């Protein structure tokens, strides 16, 4: 219990302070989460779920926390001038794990929409937040979720009432800012009531050259007939460890698009769990990772077809250079009686060097007999014939490789349902492949 001990000591010693600087609704879960964490301990690689990433090792170093909620001296609105071409977003910031509410965008949100600090909202509307908080992210099975639940003090809440459509995409920029090695525990709660619509773009950034460790737990409730897009772009640095758990629950005829793109990182573990609980629900789960040096990306997904007539499309693509390591484990469960399920899972990977490693583990578990399900995974190299063809036309080898790698991940970018973001990503990915995005330069979305 070596790695766990410092977190157990921390919680035991500072439970009062943690509670004092958070909201009752969130505090309510802490004790149980703490007990679960003590019981579970950090997962080892012997556990199927964490086979490819040694979590205990990642949590072993000593990171500072900001339990006392001291002000971080930064005004993100001054640091980031956002001008994503042709894309007008409502821009919000979470600095480390605190929602930045000192200077909010002036654009008015439609009547009834709540967007802001989870902690503040939980104090102002405790009955609303309590209805959803912690309902998807159980602490009894996963130690990382338990740890986040016991330590997280703030984050973001987005609540869109019945029938309300948010025309403008919302952009949330997470900034990691610290002078010493630092740990941030962030919580996001998203509720879309019946027929509500929203698009959210989340960018993860690390501003300082210190070691960062973040845990993030996101809960998304997509009501009947709602439409929700979640784009998450990680562009941190080599000394950042990110552990994200995204839980989505979809009711009938809801349509959710989840797209997680890792452009630059250190070690990343993303867990995504989607449960389809109403007929006609559709989820499109996409992911992309571009890695080099010693970077690691481990995506773990689970889609639960609990009822009939639902659709899931899953596509993950990795490009691995140098000694990068990628892992993808995707499970689709079609429960008994979930007839007319349509499910497709694809994972394609490019290893550009002999040292790069990709682990892929597609899993289908079907307990219904009238379904359409497929899955496929490939790991390969760049097409040599295509490379030579391009060189014969005068395209230098380096450039030809780049065009092929770019073409490879394009498939994921093309699924983005925001035209301006799609164009921006084409540009960013090209920069990434050219090695011009080798450190966090602030919000690349904004430059």
């Amino acid at each position, binding site marked *: 219990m070596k790695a766990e001990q410092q977190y157990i000591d921390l919680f035991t010693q500072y439970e009062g302070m943690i509670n004092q600087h958070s909201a009752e609704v969130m505090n309510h879960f802490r004790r149980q989460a703490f007990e679960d964490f003590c019981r579970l301990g950090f997962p080892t690689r012997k556990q199927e779920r964490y086979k490819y990433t040694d979590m205990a090792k990642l949590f072993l170093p000593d990171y500072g926390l900001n339990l006392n909620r001291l002000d971080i001296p930064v005004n993100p609105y001054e640091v980031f001038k956002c001008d994503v071409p042709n894309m007008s977003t409502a821009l919000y910031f979470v600095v480390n794990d605190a929602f930045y509410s000192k200077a909010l965008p002036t654009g008015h949100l439609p009547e009834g929409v709540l967007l802001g600090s989870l902690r503040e909202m939980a104090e102002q509307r405790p009955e609303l937040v309590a209805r959803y908080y912690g309902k998807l992210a159980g602490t009894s099975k996963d130690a990382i979720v338990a740890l986040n639940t016991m330590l997280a003090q703030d984050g973001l809440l987005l609540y869109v009432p019945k029938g309300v459509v948010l025309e403008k995409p919302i952009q949330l920029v997470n900034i990691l800012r610290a002078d010493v090695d630092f740990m941030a525990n962030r919580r996001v709660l998203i509720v879309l009531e019946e027929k509500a619509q929203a698009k959210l773009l989340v960018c993860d950034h690390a501003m300082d050259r210190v070691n960062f460790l973040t845990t993030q737990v996101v809960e998304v409730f997509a009501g009947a007939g709602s439409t929700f897009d979640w784009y998450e772009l990680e562009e941190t640095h080599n000394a950042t460890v990110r552990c994200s758990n995204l839980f989505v629950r979809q009711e009938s005829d809801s349509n959710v698009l989840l797209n997680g793109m890792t452009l630059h990182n250190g070690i990343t573990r993303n867990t995504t769990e989607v449960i389809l609980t109403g007929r006609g629900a559709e989820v499109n789960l996409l992911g992309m990772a571009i890695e080099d040096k010693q970077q690691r990306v481990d995506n773990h997904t689970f889609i639960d077809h609990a009822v009939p007539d639902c659709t899931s499309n899953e596509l993950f693509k990795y490009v691995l250079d140098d000694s990068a390591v990628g892992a993808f484990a995707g499970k689709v469960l079609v429960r008994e009686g979930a007839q007319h399920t349509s499910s497709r899972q694809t994972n394609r990977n490019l290893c550009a060097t002999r040292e790069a490693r990709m682990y892929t583990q597609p899993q289908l578990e079907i307990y219904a007999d009238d379904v359409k399900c497929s899955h496929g995974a490939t790991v390969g190299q760049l097409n040599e014939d295509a490379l030579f063809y391009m060189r*014969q036309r005068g395209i230098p080898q380096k450039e030809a490789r780049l065009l092929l790698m770019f073409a490879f991940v394009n498939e994921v970018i093309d699924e983005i349902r925001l035209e301006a973001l799609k164009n921006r990503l084409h540009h960013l990915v090209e920069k990434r492949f050219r090695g011009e995005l080798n450190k966090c330069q602030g919000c690349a979305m904004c430059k």
Partner: protein
Amino acid sequence: MLEIKDLHASINGKEILKGINLSVKTGEVHAIMGPNGSGKSTLSNVLVGHPAYEVTKGTVTFDGKDLLTLSPEDRSHEGLFLSFQYPVEIPGVSMVNFMRTAVNEQRKYKGLPALSASEFLKLMREKRAVVELDNKLANRSVNEGFSGGEKKRNEIFQMAMLEPKLSILDETDSGLDIDALRIVAEGVNRLKTPETSVLVITHYQRLLDYIKPDVVHVLYKGRIVKTAGPELALELEEKGYDWIKKELGE
């Protein structure tokens, strides 16, 4: 323009070319014919620098430069073009992006500024007309989902865009119906100037009805065993290759 002297080349340790001598002068059209497995495609691959082939002996000069020391991309920049027997499909890379990169890399090599977007699109439009290439195809990924005929037309379109000094047409007639053959051949003829040369590699006479060679060579077992005027192609069409084998004492 092209001087090949005693060229030997092998693939996976197996020698395919066993001493080729060939000279193509500026403005000439040469045809290389020969039975299956004689080394025709190896010769074209070696000339454009395919990494799978190893040159074990001999020299090739192109416009006075030692061709064999140049990278495939620089051979292209120097004006060497291969119309592939099997053009490669490249999903996800658009024709526009592919051609723009190719054209601008060539311009960079020659010390010229890159074409602007509008200049480039104008050039595309002009050159598309040469082989009647549909605009729809030009907007798709390179060769993806193209029919056999469309792929060959696309090769000649690329040739038009890059304006090479020497074009090697490797079995460009294979897989073409008679109309497509005519369009492709007319495209090649329209691009032909007194300053450019063409090397046509083919099994059959029929392409040579449209693209008239000045010189015809027969390649057999890795060597050029016979060289004559255009009448040689007709004779081969009529009698096959057996009489040549006989002449060689086989």
